[in-house]
């Protein structure tokens, strides 16, 4: 792939044509918070945490859905961007119920990590605390809507990697909810193969393995890469 040169935070860096800004930025050791992005899945551009400033663009753009181009001038950590990221995290925390102390994912949660890294120590917005349920109908896994941030990683991994698309989104706006099949209890889903991929890619405590105690729900982020690489090498073909 042809090499391109761009400037990130005043430093000249190289990347390859066809790479996203996020890839280039990360290859050069710069940390950008992300929640909806996951390597191996299509990009969604929904959490807006990876926003960066690109010269010539009137508003910040998400690094995950923006292609790196020759000669781009990019800034990743201006005070404005950091302030926006903090506010977005505050909004995510206010949207559902995030009582970390009693959450299975406490200590292993990407939302919590991002919040801590950004120094979000309190939320200035009104907690919306919607009345949402827990779905414990699946024999091995559970789904707690209180912790869902609608990143749709579960939707995408199930659709794009497992190939069944059990998950989808019902409703819209702040009423959006992850649903199994046509809004059935997960345990009654006729499509779910119980492969557990969605649980492993879920960044928060929304999808979990049953029986995990608070603080135990460690996800395996390398799982997706192993699956995809294995497929590339045709590891499981006769």
């Amino acid at each position, binding site marked *: 792939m042809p090499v391109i040169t761009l400037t990130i935070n005043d430093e000249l860096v190289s990347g390859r044509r066809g790479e996203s800004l996020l890839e280039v930025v990360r290859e050069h050791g710069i940390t950008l918070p992300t929640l909806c992005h996951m390597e191996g899945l299509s990009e969604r551009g929904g959490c807006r945490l990876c926003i960066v400033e690109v010269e010539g663009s009137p508003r910040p753009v998400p690094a995950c859905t923006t292609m790196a181009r020759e000669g781009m001038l990019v800034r990743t950590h201006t005070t404005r961007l950091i302030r926006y990221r903090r*506010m977005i995290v505050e*909004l995510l925390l206010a949207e559902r119920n995030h009582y*970390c102390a009693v959450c299975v994912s406490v200590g292993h949660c990407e939302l919590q990590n991002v919040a801590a890294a950004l120094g979000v120590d309190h939320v200035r917005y009104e907690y919306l605390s919607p009345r949402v349920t827990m779905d414990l109908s699946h024999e091995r896994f559970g789904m707690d809507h209180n912790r869902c941030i609608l990143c749709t990683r579960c939707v995408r991994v199930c659709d794009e990697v497992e190939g069944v698309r059990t998950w989808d989104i019902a409703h819209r706006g702040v009423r959006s909810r992850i649903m199994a099949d046509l809004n059935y209890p997960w345990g009654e889903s006729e499509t779910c193969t119980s492969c557990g991929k969605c649980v492993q890619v879920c960044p928060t405590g929304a999808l979990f393995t049953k029986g995990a105690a608070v603080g135990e729900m460690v996800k395996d982020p390398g799982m997706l890469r192993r699956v995809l690489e294995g497929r590339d090498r045709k590891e499981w073909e006769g």
Partner: protein
Amino acid sequence: MIPSDLRAMAEQERERQEGFRCRIMVCAGTPCLSAGADVVLETLRQGIAEGGLDAEIESVATGCMGPCSRGPLVKVRSRGKEIVYERVTSESARQILFSVVKGRRPPTVSPLPPDLPFLARQERVVLANSGSVNPERIEEYVAAGGYEALSHALHEMTPDDVCREVSLSGLRGRGGAGYPTGVKWSLARKAPGERKYVVANGDEGDPGAYMDRSIMESDPHRVLEGMALAGYAIGAEQGFIYVRGEYHLAGRRLEGAIRDAERKGLLGSRVLGSNFNFRIDIRTGAGAFVCGEETSLMASIMGKRGQPWHRPPYPAQKGLWGNPTLINNVETFAAVPAVVGRGAEWFAAIGTPKSRGTKVYALCGQVEIAGLIEVPMGTTLREVVYEIGGGIPSGKRFKAAQSGGPSGGCIPASYLDTPLDYESMERIGTIMGSGGLIIMDETSCMPDVASFFLDFCRDESCGKCAPCRVGTVEMHRLLRRITSGTATMDDLVKLEELCELVGTTSLCGLGMTAPNPVLSTLRYFRDEYVDHIRQRRCTAGVCTIAENPAPGAEGEALLHAMGVPGEVE
């Protein structure tokens, strides 16, 4: 059908119409129908039948005549003269018919003055046929010169010529952003791709707006002709018209119009005897505002969840099923037959140097006459409100005009002389938008208006991106605190900060523009916000101020449970 057949059809229809002594037109637009136009039409038809007048008098159901708040409207055209009656009932319809037969004025109903500014001050290009042809008869559109432009283009112009003509006319998109239409067409024309598509955006989700509905209902063939011209210009053989689900009448009329046009060889294969094939299909939206946004609209046409995707690529590069797709608003397409038929120069001579042509507005709110108007770009707000709209009722004062719907903003009284064109409106913090124009007098409360629009955006957010999904909810909550007198000045700061966040970091136009009604009312009416907070008073008397004042630092919910910092770092 070949061009000579088209001319013959026009000639024949004109002769047929001239065979009547008189044509009585009843407005059958949705507002007039809901005011009882169908009963009026029925009364007239009965009267004509009973009097054995079928050969002399023709009754015609037309599209919107304009002054919708005065409906049902009836227009009598005889010997080249037109008389318009407003608020017609069965009783007055009988009188009108009687007077037509006797050649005398009806005893108790009087017509609108012929020089009524509402009608006389308009310049109708897109609405030229609206209110004078029967939208359900293709012959009437053809008799009014319809499909002439398409015929001319197909036989005497190259696709490049058509693109050039549209560029030279200076026509800009009427769907909101005002992007130059010619540029968009040229991009779609040049985009490499075997198949290309033309899409007409008839979603029109803005509250209070009904320009596009009216165009589709009143003159459906004009939209189809514009789409066919676009198809020829960019090299597409398939068009879709995306109609909002609530627009039953518009959908039905378009369906009929497509069928008739196909039957007559004006759409379908080998249009007007040329080598150009063009099909148009209707797609019905399920009523989501965000589906008017072009990428969601395409997702919806392809049968997916109507959610935006990130641009670039733009539809002209990669649209429906990955192919180059041209999307324009219904009014934009409706202007094209006039541009091609009468020439770019003619069109460009109307309006201002940067905003050419005319614009249709849905004038509503506190004005004497509300309805649909079409005026040259650059007409001032004062002219629209005081001359065309007849001023503010009950001697009240004009306070503000809200334009551009949930993406727009307010124009205060001090800017009444602002010309309504893309640049001037943007300069004062609002937008032309699609043409909704809500006039407000002193009884409107600005924070309440902002809250109304935020409520709308919050409900219509698709939920894909976090700032819009949650930000609009929090903004609405803060506005509700302000209007109920429970907010602190700190809430105002939070509100402004959220405006900035949602406006700059959202994925699509819905979120990016959602703060505009707040920002523009804050810009001109900040006092009202402060009054609600500090004095706990709504000057306009609209808001119900809560009994108990603001409960201190509520909302400052500490994330006590975030804890375990050692572990998460």
